[in-house]
């Protein structure tokens, strides 16, 4: 702010030759100094950068894994995991507020002077030293000259003040002082914003934790079980909490995530969710989602009913409720489980999402947990336009659900099933996905759908392969057929061949075609003609499986197997069924689920915030905006007119002006002013004037 001599001087209150500054004065100067402020700002910036690069507020475990025990501890002590709430960060911010406040308050006197003083005490030499000045020797009297000067200044928007000193009169004009106000506003705004931010910070919570009144809860408990030390009373301070409420349910708390745990924040009212709706784009992405809320507050006569959506929150009693997310709210899934052990047993299960069930499956125990349910699975499908003739290139594969099965040893696998069959290259399959870990992608078991679009035929086929008599008779027929084709009669050979088929089918069921192949390699290794043995064995297996399939079809149609002639569609089914049987060996679950029916229930994810300092911050922001524009786009201009009696009667007028900020632009303005004065003084018939 100290640029030229004509502007305000860097007036420090204690630099006028006083012998010693008081200690308080030194402190004040230091605190209000620019250097301190810059240093602090650099530290704040670096800390902020750290906060962006190091993911904040994750669980301690994550950091421990990422950094190892030593650095984890170092960063933890420095509180880098929650850097913006770290005590030292807040301390520095507080210091900055102090520094800015002191700086502004120390400068306010000089700013005030600049705004109010007109500087009528200028001397002639000062005006002559200005770049913009002009001089007139005129026949007009000093009084007239003064009038003209004042009028000119006022006509150009300057506020004027006149002072007479002896026979010299000085008219001083000024405009654009608002820029100084801009300076004050911007800096005061910074302080105001910072105060608002502190009010909204979690200082209260930190203090309570520090004094031991509050303790973070880390266990996954029902709300009613959380101990009192982890509860925060309603309306006790600023907070940002989350809560997930299923449709039809209500909540009177929200949860504050803190480091590796949480606190329960009481609300002074109850939020009930009547309904939740999602509107989708054609490509399946959510367009908007909204919740119908009812706020039950004892202080209200009637509950408030309002619908909130993304970007449309609801504010009540200083609390603002936002639509943040959504999840499943415990949908009911009516499942049928088909055991794959050949018993053909079926179990019915009415499950709910997020619940865990213990399953007893014929000697095996499994823990089933339903993890999620998706109503829509929409993908781009360019072929759907050709096929259906529709205009949409998106296809909805229908609902899907995910679950986890954990065995007695504690090993878990995750599964994902689609409710309805999915069309892939003109054939329909039931997709059963499986993965052993969350980082892996799902691998899908494709179970072919039969002519009724169900899994029944496949399940019957799979079950038949477990029945020794079925396999025996089928393998016998296959062996006879094959040997007959080769022209080798004999039932003894046929028995042996049938026996190998049985073994291969067992291997197929437990280790898939890969296992069969490995076994055949072993068996063929020592033989004289390995290739032929392999080929023959594979033919036997194939034929046996085919015979089993014919049995299944015969069963379905209620006729004798011998009368079954398969068409191309059924043969295609057979191919896929074989593949599915092989793949099922790796499925890793003793049963396959089928979803018959569901009741979809959603839960809305709400964020609830209370920010009493918000209006302070907004006021500060408004001040900052106004201040910045005033500061940049208004410049303070001063003009002077010094009038004294001329040597030859009449008067002399010396006019000068300055604009520190935009001197080039001022040149034009000054010219206009001087020309206007010129017009009045010399309407083409006055004696010559000089520049």
């Amino acid at each position, binding site marked *: 702010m100290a640029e030229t001599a004509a502007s305000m001087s860097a007036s420090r209150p204690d630099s006028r030759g006083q012998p010693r500054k008081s200690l308080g004065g030194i402190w004040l100067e230091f605190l209000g100094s620019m250097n301190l402020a810059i240093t602090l700002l650099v530290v704040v910036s670096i800390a902020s950068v750290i906060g962006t690069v190091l993911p904040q507020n994750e669980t301690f475990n994550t950091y421990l894994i990422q950094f190892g025990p030593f650095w984890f501890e170092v960063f933890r002590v420095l509180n880098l995991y929650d850097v913006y709430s770290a005590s030292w960060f807040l301390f520095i911010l507080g210091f900055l507020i102090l520094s800015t406040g002191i700086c502004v308050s120390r400068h306010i006197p000089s700013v005030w002077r600049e705004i109010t003083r007109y500087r009528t005490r200028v001397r002639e030499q000062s005006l002559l030293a200005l770049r913009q000045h002009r001089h007139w020797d005129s026949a007009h009297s000093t009084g007239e000259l003064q009038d003209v000067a004042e009028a000119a200044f006022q006509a150009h928007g300057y506020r004027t003040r006149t002072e007479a000193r002896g026979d010299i009169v000085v008219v001083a004009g000024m405009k654009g002082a608002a820029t100084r106000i801009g300076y004050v506003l911007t800096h005061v705004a910074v302080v105001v914003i910072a105060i608002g931010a502190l009010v909204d910070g979690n200082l209260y919570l930190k203090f309570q934790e520090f004094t031991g009144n509050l303790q973070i809860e880390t266990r996954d408990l029902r709300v009613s079980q959380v101990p009192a030390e982890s509860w925060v009373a309603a309306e006790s301070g600023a907070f940002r909490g989350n809560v997930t409420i299923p449709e039809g349910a209500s909540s009177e708390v929200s949860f504050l995530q803190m480091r590796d745990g949480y606190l329960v924040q009481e609300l002074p009212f109850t939020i009930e969710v009547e309904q939740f709706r999602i509107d989708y784009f054609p*490509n399946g992405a959510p367009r908007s989602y909204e919740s119908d809320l009812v706020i039950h507050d004892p202080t209200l006569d009637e509950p408030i009913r309002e619908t909130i959506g993304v970007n449309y929150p609801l504010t009540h009693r200083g609390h603002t409720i936002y639509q943040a997310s959504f999840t499943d709210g415990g949908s009911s899934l009516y499942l049928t489980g088909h055991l794959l052990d050949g018993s053909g047993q079926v179990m019915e299960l009415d499950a709910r999402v997020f619940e865990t069930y213990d399953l007893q499956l014929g000697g095996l125990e499994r823990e089933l947990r339903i993890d999620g349910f998706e109503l829509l699975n929409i993908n781009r499908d360019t072929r759907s336009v050709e096929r259906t003739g529709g205009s949409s290139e998106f296809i909805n594969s229908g609902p899907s659900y995910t679950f986890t099965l954990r065995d007695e040893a504690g090993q878990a696998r995750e599964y994902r099933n689609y409710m309805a069959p999915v069309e892939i290259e003109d054939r329909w399959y039931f997709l059963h996905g499986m993965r052993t870990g969350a980082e892996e992608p799902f691998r899908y078991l494709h179970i072919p759908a039969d002519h009724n679009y169900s899994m029944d035929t496949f399940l019957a086929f799979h079950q038949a392969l477990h029945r020794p008599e079925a396999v025996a008779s089928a393998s016998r027929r296959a062996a006879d057929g094959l040997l007959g084709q080769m022209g080798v009669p004999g039932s003894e050979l046929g028995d042996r061949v049938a026996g190998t088929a049985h073994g291969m089918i067992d291997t197929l069921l437990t280790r898939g075609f890969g296992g069969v192949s490995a076994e055949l390699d072993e068996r063929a290794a020592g033989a004289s003609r390995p290739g032929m043995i392999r080929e023959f064995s594979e033919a036997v297996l194939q034929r046996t499986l085919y015979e089993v399939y014919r049995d299944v079809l015969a069963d379905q149609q209620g006729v004798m197997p011998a009368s079954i002639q398969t068409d191309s569609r059924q043969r295609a089914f057979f191919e896929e069924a074989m593949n599915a049987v092989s793949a099922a060996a790796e499925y890793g679950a003793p049963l396959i689920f089928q979803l018959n029916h569901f009741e979809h229930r959603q839960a809305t994810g709400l964020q609830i915030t209370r920010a009493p300092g918000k209006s302070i911050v907004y006021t500060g922001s408004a001040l900052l905006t106004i201040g910045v524009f005033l500061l940049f786009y208004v410049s303070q201009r001063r003009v002077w007119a010094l009038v004294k009696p001329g040597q030859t009667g009449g008067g002399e007028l010396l006019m000068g002006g300055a604009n520190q900020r935009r001197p080039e632009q001022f040149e034009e303005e000054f010219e206009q002013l001087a020309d206007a004065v010129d017009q009045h003084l010399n309407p083409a018939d006055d004696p010559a004037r000089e520049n």
Partner: protein
Amino acid sequence: MVASRDEMIRSMRRPSLLQRLTPGDWFWAALVVVATAVTCTVLWDAMNRYEVVITLFTAGAMIGMGWHWHGGRLYMGLVCAVSLFAISRYPDLAAADSDFFLRYLLSSQSAIMWMSALFPAATLAYGAALFTGNDFTARVASRLTWIAAGAGLVGLLVRWHETHLFEGGIGYIPVSNLYEVFVLFAVITALLYLYYEGAYRTRQLGFFVLLIISASIGFLLWYHFDRQAYQIEPLVPALNSYWMKIHVPTNFIAYGAFALAAMLGVAYLIRDRVSDDSVWAQRLPTLKQIDDISYRSIALGFAFFTVATILGALWAAEAWGAYWSWDPKESWSLIVWLNYAGWLHLRYTKGLRGRFMAWWAIIGLLVTTFCFLGVNMFLSGLHSYGEL
């Protein structure tokens, strides 16, 4: 004789703003008012009250800009006329392939491709003008920049129309993802440059500024071809707000101004290096002029950046539940803000000019680029709309 005081004041008063307006100014104002009235009538049902306010405010800004900057007036008028023409030929998406004008010139993809060709061409022309000192080449370069900026803005406006042509009502203002805002960045930086080019009557800084614009075009083209980023996807619910219409453009005025100032810093350093009697010293503006434009650009950028950050905070309060979450994007915005606040402080209080400030402006661009791009690319956070 000297007249009475009041008569004198009246006679010396500068013509007021209204009196200084030319017929052309009045015509322009009338044109904008009529266009705004028609827009509001036609689209009344589609706008909420905030958007009506934004429209009126935009109209006022266009009138003001047109009065202050005559070159901008012609630009705005032509862009609007061409865009309306393009829209008139665009009843459905298929028209983009069948209609001649749309296919080769005016569909958003064509227009943006033209822009992507014209900006590098302008860069070369400005470079040639700088190296040869030829004034005609400089004028050609200037025209190319105008046309390129026009093509870019037409592209964005037509894209706005295109989003409304998709089924499912996904229409939105095309400033929602990294692809669209890069076009906006190029256009705004070019317009800011052209304004100062006119105000300071020098074309020799064009080469420097167009360099950064061409760099952004390079990124845009890579993003287009490698990631097919030009495809129109529906907005996520959080972006579906009138705030996007004001927060994003103000932010990009700031980014454009900061980029401009950084390239002027480069020009400053070069001008500082060449000896005063070399031919370069004649061609390039004086150090003081470069410094002046640099300052005005940073001041403009800082003012708009302040507004944009505050608007972002207001929007965040409505959409995310808190006006400040120390999200990486927000934190880096603060750092950018502090950086330029520091630059301005040193200039105002210590009167610093010269090489040091030029370097600071250049480094400021690196900080700004990290805030603009780096956060989206390397850091996660709530602001991941602009993800690569």
